[in-house]
């Protein structure tokens, strides 16, 4: 049960929202949207190993 992954993703989310506000004030609207996309991609990359481990565990437990 690695809990640090949860806090990493929460941290990334907060960072992205803060940077979004900063970028909006600096007038760079399009960078803000690109940043949001980058945040989603990073979080996805962090999540995929856990989902993969989940399905492998289910496969091993139920002898599929």
């Amino acid at each position, binding site marked *: *049960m690695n809990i640090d992954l949860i806090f990493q993703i*929460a941290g990334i*989310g907060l960072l*992205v929202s803060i940077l979004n506000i900063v970028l909006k004030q600096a007038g760079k609207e399009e960078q803000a949207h690109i940043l949001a996309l980058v*945040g989603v991609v990073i979080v996805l990359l962090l999540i995929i190993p*856990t989902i993969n481990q989940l399905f492998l565990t289910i496969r091993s*437990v*139920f002898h*599929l």
Partner: protein
Amino acid sequence: MEIVRVLGIALISALLIVLLRQEHEELALLLGLLVAALIFLFAVTRLESIVVILQSLAQHTGVSPQYLTLILKIIAIAYIAEFGSQICRDADLEALAGTVELAGRVIILLLSAPIIVTIFNLVLKLLP
């Protein structure tokens, strides 16, 4: 106890998800997916001993192993379909959740079709 730990993790991540939801709906959904997967992983690893007990019982009572593996496969499909449909419901996609559940039911029905046929044959034989 373990349940307290799981509850703690669930509550903390629920707070984080609600915090993230104002700004970024998609990140909140991804975090929810991650926490659901972690707790599901925690639960499934605990299920291992139950499966071992089931198999030993099956050997003692003489149930043929192919039926037990089928039951385990159906249980796994039910869990995964439920997991997927709840995540879709989390994202307010009721129709998608419904279709995932329908797919799960169809797959389970397909798997259990031969068993239904054997049961019918058995019943017909019993009747005079």
